[in-house]
Structure formats: structure tokens, C-alpha cells
């Protein structure tokens, strides 16, 4: 086969791009264009990433010495709670799906828009409303429950739990609506010839994510509703003082929040699948295995939540069951990682910034994945549970996995989204700073956790001080790297070179239209005849290896 996409010479760029096709503030505020909404989400999640990042730096600074330094215990507790809640609910969960996913999904499928564009707009405003409530909680009396809202602490503390949970409840609906929209889009909006085996792996990942969003988030909604009612009326389901069971709350909460972990990481997997193939000029290794493992992870993620409750007073027998199922989730994850590495084999790897992030991801995610194993091993988890080991593990997965993939994906699609090229050298410096800073910050925390440093302590035993200081310094490097990245990306918006329509020579559909795309994405509906990874560099003369 020749090219994956029927070549239809793109019209000379006479049609204005989506950025300028309509003008004025209102044209943005009421837009139903998935690309504009993607950018609006991008700006919002970046704003919250910045806020929560600053909170993280404040936390690390307080932890520089074992004693209380410049924050009271109450302030520290509020700051770590807000760091967690904002990062989870306002940054990571919407980051890849709502920002990049919104922008790319219809483009990758060859559609003009998502299935329900107005629902998409609504979803953005619902998210904003949720964010407003969370901010209101911060501005009134704060929130000090931890992002997990465990009862009975959350039913008895004096802080603004109801405002904050209402915010999360509302933001959850945004997540549901986005997921619903994406599932329908993938099912009904594919361009001619785009069958399930020709979808880019990013679409598979977003699809799996959307399925989880639809199935898990409603349970979060009802959990938070019950929590709000418990706090205001004391109905006695979660609050032991009224005859309820606090461990039941943890079941309710983690039934959503464990799958939510995969809402956060699966889209990252999708991005890496794209980065690894495009920048090594090679067909992805094991397309079906990667696609189906996304779906498998999505399904299995629903039956492993009990590993958050191994020491919570959950029945030991349930612990055994959940431990076993948790290991089961490791298998598809391992398959993915191996497939990415195998994709590099006999490729022609071009080291630009996006590729650097892809390679960094393989390191950080491997660490994150492997350190998940002791946490799923029952007896070891008893020791490591709620220590810095857990903190380090999920930061390796959430930051080292999702955020690194997200930033990598941002660099990869930046020319398409903005029509501007960024400075590659600046990008590589940023990537190096992020990678080093990140590893220094969190690798140390594995050792801390193993030696028994509990989570959520604002003051700690002096034995831990050296490692805490190393970690704090690492976090400063990480912060500098991220700020640096922000600066040169913003700079490129104004001073960057104009981007060609396909700077990386990718084959998937989003690169077959101009940069930035026109309002309806394609001048004419594309027809797909082959795989999205069928690069011209692939040597087809040799025998074997066809799909």
C-alpha cells in the first residue's frame, strides 16, 4: 500500500484557521468547536497546574527541616489537601482527555467535530463551575481532609468540606459528559475507512478512558452526595458516631478513585504510543496488544480498588482477592511497556523534544510501575501503606507518567494546535531539568517511605532530614524546568516560526490538514486506507512483518 491516507492535495491555506475564523471574546466563550474548547481546557488545566505546583513547592519548603518552620499545622494540612484536590480533580483528570483529547479526537478520526459539540461546551462550563466551588472553599475556611475526604474526619472537621465536595461533585459531571461525548464520537463519527484497527492508539486510550469516566464517575457523585448529606444531616451511613461504617466510605470512594487513576494514566499511554512511533519512524509494535491492553486495564481497574484498604480494617479475605486482581492489572501494563521499547528496534529515532519526553516516560513509568508491585503484595504493603513510598509511587505514575506524557504530547502537537514551532534546544533543556528534578525529588521518597516516614506529616523525625532536603532541592529543579517550559512555549506563541502542516512527517489524520486546522478540520472528508503508523521510511522490500 502506498500512503495510509488517500492523498488529497491540501488546498493552499486560503481558508482561515480555527483560531481566527471567528473573532471576538464571545466567539470563544460560546464556541462549540472542539479545537477551541481543547485550548480553553488547556489554559484552565495549566492554570490549576501552576497553582497546585506552587502549593507543592510550599509544602516541600516546609519539609526542609524536621520542625515546624513557617506554616502552622493547620495551614500545612490545608495546603497538602488543596495540592492533592486541585491536581487530581482540576488538573490531571481533565488534562489529557479534555485538553489534548478534545483537540485531537475528531481530527484523528477524520470527523468535523465531536458527536455533541454543545454538550462539550456545557462540559467546559460545568468544569469551571466545579473549579469555582473549590476555589470558594479555599477562600472561605479552607479544606483539610486530604483529597480523599475520609469519614469521619470529613464529617467532623470545621473546614469547608461541603463547598469543596460540591465542587468536586460538579467537576465530576464535566468528566462524565466529556467521557460520554468521546465514546459516542469514537463509535459514530469515524471517517470512511476508519475501522477499529486503523484508529490511532491515542484514540484507543482516550476511548478506554472515556468508558471509565462514564462508568466510575457516577459512583463518585453519589459518594460525595452521601458525604454532603452525612455531614449536614448525619444520616449515619459513613459516620460511626451515628451508626455508620467509615470503611464503607472508603469502598465507595475508591470504587471511583481507583479507576480514576487509570483515567489519569491511560491517555498518557496513548500519547506515548504516538510519540514512540512517529519519532522512530516505525510501525508500533503489537498494535492489537496495546489497543486491547488499554481496554483490559480499563475493565480490570474496576476490580482492584480494595488495595487501598489492605490495612483499613477491610476483611483479610477481601484483601487477598484484591491483591490478586491488582497483580492482574500489571500484566497488560507490562505488555504495553515492552511493546514501546520493541517499537524502537530497527527504527530511525529522531531526538527532538517530544521524543525526549517519550524516552523519559519509559524510565519514569517503569519505576512507577515496578514500585506498584510491592504495594500490591499484601504483606509488604502493610509496611509501606500511607508512607512516602506510596507518595513516591503515585507521583512516579501521575507526574512521571501522565504529566511527562502530557508535556511530551503538548510538544508533539504544539505546532498543530498553535501553528507555531518552539525552540528545540530550549525544549531539550526543559526536558532535562524536569527529568532530573523529578527523579531527585521522588526517588528519595522511596527510601524515606521504606524507612517508615508517614505521609502528611508537617514535622518529622530528625533521622529523615537529609533525604527530605534532597527531595526539596529536587523539587526546586523540577519547578524551574516546568517554568522554563512554560516560558519558551508562551514565547513561541508570539515569536515562534510558522509551523508546517506536518513537521514530524506523521501519517495519522490530524497531520493531513493545515496547521492550525480550519474550523471544520478538513477541506473534504478524508478516506482512510491503512494504518496510522505506515511511515514512508519503513522498508517494505523485505519479506514478512505485514499486518
Amino acid at each position, binding site marked *: 500500500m502506498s500512503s495510509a491516507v488517500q492523498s488529497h492535495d491540501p488546498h493552499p491555506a486560503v481558508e482561515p484557521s480555527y483560531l481566527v475564523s471567528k473573532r471576538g471574546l464571545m466567539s470563544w466563550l460560546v464556541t462549540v468547536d472542539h479545537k477551541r474548547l481543547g485550548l480553553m481546557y488547556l489554559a484552565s488545566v495549566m492554570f490549576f497546574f501552576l497553582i497546585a505546583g506552587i502549593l507543592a513547592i510550599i509544602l516541600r519548603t516546609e519539609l526542609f527541616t524536621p520542625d515546624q518552620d513557617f506554616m502552622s499545622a493547620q495551614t500545612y494540612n490545608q495546603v497538602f489537601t488543596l495540592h492533592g484536590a486541585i491536581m487530581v480533580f482540576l488538573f490531571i483528570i481533565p488534562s489529557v482527555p479534555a485538553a489534548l483529547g478534545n483537540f485531537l479526537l475528531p481530527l484523528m478520526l477524520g470527523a468535523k467535530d465531536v458527536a455533541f459539540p454543545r454538550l462539550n461546551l456545557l462540559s467546559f462550563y460545568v468544569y469551571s463551575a466545579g473549579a469555582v466551588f473549590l476555589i470558594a472553599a479555599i477562600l472561605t475556611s479552607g479544606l483539610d481532609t486530604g483529597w480523599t475526604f475520609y469519614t469521619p474526619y470529613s464529617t467532623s472537621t470545621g473546614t469547608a468540606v461541603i463547598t469543596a465536595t460540591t465542587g468536586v461533585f460538579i467537576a465530576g459531571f464535566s468528566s462524565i459528559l466529556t467521557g460520554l461525548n468521546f465514546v459516542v464520537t469514537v*463509535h*459514530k463519527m*469515524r*471517517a*470512511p*475507512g*476508519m*475501522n477499529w484497527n*486503523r484508529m490511532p492508539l491515542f484514540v484507543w486510550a482516550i476511548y478506554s478512558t472515556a468508558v471509565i469516566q462514564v*462508568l466510575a464517575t457516577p*459512583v463518585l457523585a453519589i459518594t460525595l452526595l452521601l458525604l454532603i448529606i452525612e455531614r449536614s444531616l*448525619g444520616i449515619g451511613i459513613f459516620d*460511626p*458516631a*451515628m*451508626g455508620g*461504617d467509615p*470503611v*464503607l466510605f472508603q*469502598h*465507595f470512594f475508591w*470504587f471511583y478513585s481507583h479507576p480514576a487513576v487509570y483515567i489519569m494514566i491511560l491517555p498518557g499511554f496513548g500519547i506515548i504510543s504516538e510519540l514512540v512511533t512517529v519519532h522512530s519512524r516505525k510501525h508500533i509494535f503489537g498494535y492489537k496488544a496495546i489497543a486491547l491492553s488499554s481496554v483490559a486495564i480499563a475493565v480490570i481497574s*474496576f*476490580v482492584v*480498588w*480494595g488495595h487501598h*484498604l489492605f490495612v483499613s*480494617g*477491610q*476483611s*483479610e*479475605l*477481601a484483601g487477598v*482477592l*484484591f491483591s490478586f486482581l491488582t497483580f492482574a492489572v500489571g500484566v497488560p501494563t507490562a505488555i504495553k511497556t515492552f511493546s514501546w521499547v520493541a517499537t524502537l528496534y530497527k527504527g530511525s529515532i529522531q531526538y527532538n523534544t517530544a521524543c525526549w519526553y517519550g524516552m523519559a516516560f519509559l524510565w519514569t513509568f517503569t519505576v512507577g510501575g515496578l514500585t506498584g508491585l510491592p504495594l500490591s503484595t499484601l504483606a509488604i504493603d502493610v509496611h509501606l501503606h500511607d508512607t512516602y513510598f506510596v507518595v513516591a509511587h503515585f507521583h512516579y505514575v501521575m507526574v512521571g507518567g501522565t504529566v511527562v506524557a502530557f508535556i511530551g504530547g503538548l510538544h508533539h502537537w504544539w505546532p498543530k494546535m498553535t501553528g507555531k514551532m518552539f525552540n528545540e534546544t530550549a525544549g531539550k533543556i526543559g526536558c532535562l531539568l524536569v527529568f532530573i528534578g523529578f527523579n531527585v525529588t521522588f526517588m528519595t521518597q522511596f527510601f524515606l517511605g521504606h524507612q517508615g516516614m508517614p505521609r502528611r506529616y508537617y514535622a518529622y523525625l530528625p533521622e529523615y532530614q537529609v533525604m527530605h532536603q534532597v527531595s526539596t532541592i529536587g523539587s526546586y529543579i523540577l519547578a524551574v524546568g516546568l517554568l522554563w517550559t512554560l516560558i519558551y512555549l508562551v514565547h513561541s506563541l508570539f515569536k515562534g516560526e510558522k509551523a508546517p502542516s506536518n513537521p514530524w512527517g506523521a501519517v495519522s489524520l490530524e497531520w493531513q490538514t493545515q496547521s492550525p486546522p480550519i474550523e471544520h478540520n478538513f477541506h473534504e*472528508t478524508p478516506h*482512510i486506507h491503512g494504518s496510522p503508523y505506515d511511515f514512508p521510511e519503513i522498508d517494505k522490500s523485505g519479506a514478512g512483518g505485514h499486518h
Partner: protein
Amino acid sequence: MAKVFLNGQPVEHPHEVHEHISPMSTYNAVIGALFVLTGLTFAVSFADLGPASLTVAMVVAFIKASLVVAYFMHLKYDDKYHLFVFLGTIIFVGIFFGFTMFDLKSRDALNDEQETFVRWKEQQNAGKGLVVGVDNVPERRAKVLADIEAHGGGHGGGDHGGEHKADAKAEHKAAAH
């Protein structure tokens, strides 16, 4: 109209929307069955079936629900993927129920002695100030209720003290499960 595609496949007659239209008799039969089944559960609820009553009621409810879903919601004739979505949802609800119930039912399965210890300790603590845990749920609840009475309704706490005690005793039994 050669260029109309759906799900990546060409569509022959894009204008036609194929929908199954059920005859009136189907709807009448279904609503009749639903009324009969409702009458059945209602009648059964007066008979004392003991624990079996939950099973009977749930089976009847499932039959009723299936009728509504299959005929009123047209799932029987609809896109098979919708059926998949619906059944998939039920399976996930099942996972949620099953695993949570499994935990709650098997708690302390490995610690039979604990029960004896707790009883013994409760006797030890009887009359002492240090009351903790399950044993004082009723007292704490009674206190909350007393607060409410004190603030509204005009009921004096003293009049109902006896009631509370009786109340608390029974609750104690329930809470000790």
C-alpha cells in the same frame, strides 16, 4: 449519495431510519403483565415468607424491569451495542455490590477470639469514664438528640430520659453486630 459513511462503513440508504414499531397488542400485554406482577409482590408482602421474601421481591422486580427495558425501551429490537452498554452497566453494579458485600460479610473471619475479648473489656469498662468504640454509639447519638431537643421543639430532656435509655439499650444490641 455514494459518499455517506457511518462507522467507517458506507451506508446504502442514508435517509431511512430503520425503527421497529411494536404493535399496540405488545404494549397492552406488557402493561397488563406489569400490573399483575405488581399485584403479586404486593400480595406476597402480606404473607410471611421470612428471608425468602427479599428473593421473591427481587425476582419479580427483575422480571418487571426486563419487560420495561425490552419492550418499552425497545432494547429487544435496538442496536445490540445498546444492550451491551446496559448489561455492562449491570455487571459493573454487580462488581460494586459483590466486592463490597464480600468485604463486609467476611470481616473478622480470622479473629474469633476478638469477640470474647471485646465483651470482657466492655464489662471491665462498665461504669468507667472511658467508653470507646461501638459500645458508645447509642450514647453519642442520644447526646446529639438531646442537643436537638434542647435547642428546639421545647421538649425537656428530663421527660424523655427514660425513653432514651430504653432506646439506647436496644441500639446497643443492634450496634454490637
